[in-house]
């Protein structure tokens, strides 16, 4: 390896039995085990064995699917999911080098709770934690909390509440980050002569007062190993790009072509400039749904079979790649030249497409000298080439 960023980082997005809604019906799928810890541990270990840089774990409060704002009566989909932060914590002790990014929702939840949960994920994973911040727009999810309405109801009064939700998410991420810094490193002194366990001058009230909430602080949890765990945002719409520029380390984007990838990288940089982002630039990851096989026709057949079960052609917000691992690698190395830090691959069905990534895609990258042959145990930040940031509250 020469420069730090000559090879693309590879993340894998875990979701149920795979991203295709009918994937649970594949012969190798394990639909009865989706709520067992071992299923998630084995997926994480497989990804780690394959040198994948990080996994993300999808989440939402309302069980998928939701149709027209109400629970969907159909019975042919995977119903239910476990809390992603807890799945992340459950797999962390079984892994030692892979980054772990569960989705956490910013809309109906408490920034104080999420901050200490992700700090704790960082402690139990020894510096491999973070989260993907997600807003919740649906009436169905709003109804589970009963404290406010979803976007559809809000539109009647002419406001643009989805922008509000992203604004709230930006405050949320800001508070989460301030709470991570609310303890300086070395605040715990254990000074027996004076009887003091902490130096309270190194603990800080964050005194955040915003439009959506106020949070006093400090956190009940000390500063986590990475100082600031990784924050990621999936961006499709302008306010999401702005949110990412304001508060995230990683941004997931969904181009369908190389040109579009270039345009989205440009949009990321424009947003960084417009919010006067400080510190490291955002690392842009391209999301791709992948159906992989050594023979292209077999990959297409499998997707076709799943589409037949679904009753329509599966489409996604992200580009759907169907083909050979070698062809995927061609695409990755081609698109990477547009300033992309890496790719987050969404396996169409699991375990097959995950194993294709670990057994074929990454070895192919290695054969082309485009991926390392091993990783040491390191924090996720350092794996992504990011420094451990100074504490905003520390006197220098």
């Amino acid at each position, binding site marked *: 390896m020469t420069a730090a960023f000559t090879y693309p980082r590879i993340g894998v997005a875990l979701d149920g039995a795979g991203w295709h809604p009918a994937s649970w019906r594949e012969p190798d799928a394990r639909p009865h085990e989706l709520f067992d810890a071992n299923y998630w541990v084995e997926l994480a270990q497989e990804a780690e064995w394959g040198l994948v840089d990080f996994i993300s774990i999808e989440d939402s*409060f309302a069980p998928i699917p939701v149709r027209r704002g109400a629970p969907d009566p159909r019975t042919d989909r995977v119903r239910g999911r476990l809390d992603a932060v807890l799945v992340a914590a459950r797999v*962390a002790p079984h892994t030692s080098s892979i980054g772990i990014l569960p989705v956490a929702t910013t809309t109906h939840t408490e920034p104080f709770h999420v901050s200490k949960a992700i700090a704790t994920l960082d402690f139990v994973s020894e510096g491999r934690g973070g989260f993907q911040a997600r807003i919740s727009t649906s009436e*169905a999810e709003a*109804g589970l909390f009963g404290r406010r309405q979803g976007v559809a109801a809000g539109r009647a009064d002419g406001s643009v509440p989805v922008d509000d939700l992203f604004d709230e998410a930006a405050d949320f991420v800001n508070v989460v980050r301030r709470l991570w810094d609310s303890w300086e490193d070395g605040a715990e002194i254990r000074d027996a002569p004076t009887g003091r366990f902490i130096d309270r001058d190194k603990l800080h009230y964050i005194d955040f007062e915003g439009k959506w909430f106020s949070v006093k602080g400090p956190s*009940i949890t000390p500063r986590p190993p990475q100082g600031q765990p990784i924050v990621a945002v999936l961006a499709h719409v302008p306010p999401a790009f702005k949110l990412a520029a304001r508060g995230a380390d990683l941004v997931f984007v969904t181009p369908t072509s190389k040109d579009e990838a270039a345009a989205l990288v440009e949009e990321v940089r424009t947003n960084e400039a417009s919010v006067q982002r400080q510190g490291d630039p955002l690392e842009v990851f391209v999301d791709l749904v992948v159906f992989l096989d050594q023979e292209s026709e077999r990959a297409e057949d499998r997707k076709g079979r799943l589409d037949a079960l679904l009753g329509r052609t599966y489409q996604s917000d992200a580009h759907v790649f169907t083909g050979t691992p070698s062809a995927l690698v061609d695409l990755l190395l081609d698109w990477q030249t547009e300033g992309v830090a890496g790719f987050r691959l969404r396996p169409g069905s699991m375990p097959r497409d995950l194993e294709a990534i670990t057994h074929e895609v990454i070895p192919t990258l290695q054969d082309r000298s485009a991926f390392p042959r091993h990783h040491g145990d390191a924090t996720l930040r350092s794996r992504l080439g990011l420094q451990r940031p100074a504490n905003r509250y520390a006197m220098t």
Partner: protein
Amino acid sequence: MTETLPKIHLAAHFPGVNNTTVWSDPEAGSHIEFSSFVRLARTAERAKFDFFFLAEGLRLREQRGKIHDLDVVGRPDTFTVLAALAAVTHRIGLSGTINSTFNEPYEVARQFASLDHLSGGRAAWNVVTSWDAFTGENFRRGGFLAQEDRYDRAQEFLHTARELWDSWSDDAIVADRESGRFVVDPTEGDFDHRGRQFTISGRFGVPRSPQGHPVIFQAGDSDAGREFAAADADCIFTRHGTIDAGQRFYDDVKGRLSRYGRRADDLKILPAVTFVLGETEADAAERAAVIRRQQVSGPTAILFLEQVWNRDLSGYDPDGPLPHIEPDLFSPSISRGRVTAFPDQAATATRWRELAASKKLSIRQLMMEVTSPASFVGTPFQVATAIDESVRARACDGFIVVPHVTPGGLDEFADSVVPLLQEWGRFHTDYEGETLRDHLGLSGPRSSKASRLVGSEVRV
């Protein structure tokens, strides 16, 4: 004879954020690194304890407007650390304290159901309430709840969570590839709750977990707390006292159960208890005295006194006499974020003055005398005997053991007291079941989707 003896239950409390925990001991390790939690949980599992228990506090404690710095400060997120502990243990129950005031039932029900799945049926929830605006400053809704409403909210919170856990049938997931049915009943997970505290509806996102409902704990000795426990809890987390006091509490609480159609075995009474062991009784007493001095340092003694005097006493010598100045009964409390052990300031101050005068005690000596000392002090034989006697006398169903030192403070107990109880046939030598409900001898949850549907016609 032996078949009539009640079973002894033991559990381990991670050392708390209070002066019981001795951080200045050379053996004391981190209170936040995961390795400390792993070590203590594994020791408890090696000793075949029923569960591992975590307390919680959602705001750092303050005194005189400053963050309290004399005790251990800082702890992890309860759910997250318990989910991680499920990875490194196999049988031991994982019990977390979660506040019903600064959370929403949908989210908490989802987290406990997830934890129960991820641990294979080992989750437990110690339901606590609070109302203080001080803690509320860390949360969206602030200090929104009146003190008198906190049990109302807690009870409806728990009932709502139970409705969510009951919204899925036991064997809802068929995942039949051929027919394409993941579930048979399209209403799996659907719920509709309308109450004074919560009006929520939709579909619950987690299929029924191995225990159905996590084991429910209630902590608190008040009448309202006891009634809450009799109606709704599986275990009471209480304070240890004399056998007489324990028997009165035990009879009172278990006597309330029949009103709710429950048997005495359906609610376990588990006091928290600290311990100091020694090779001889004198040795144990000497070690207890050393620990006592570590727990009540000079600054800590002044801090306790300030809680009753409600004044800044930082100028007083802890090795000197009590202040001549009287307590300030009228100003707001200078101590925030903790439950006071001495609610009646005036009476407490009078009692302390008398005690200090009669025994000629300094401030620090007095505080060592009046704040709670270790409960069991003696040889392993004496401590095992005391545990056995308390359970035989039906003063409790067992104990939640609180070590002084993190993370090795339970080792000695596991290696000396537990083997004696096992030798006497008074404590199990291995887990008999898989879930925490199995360990505690609790029947399954009293409701399920099936029973709810059948029962709804006869319910008043």
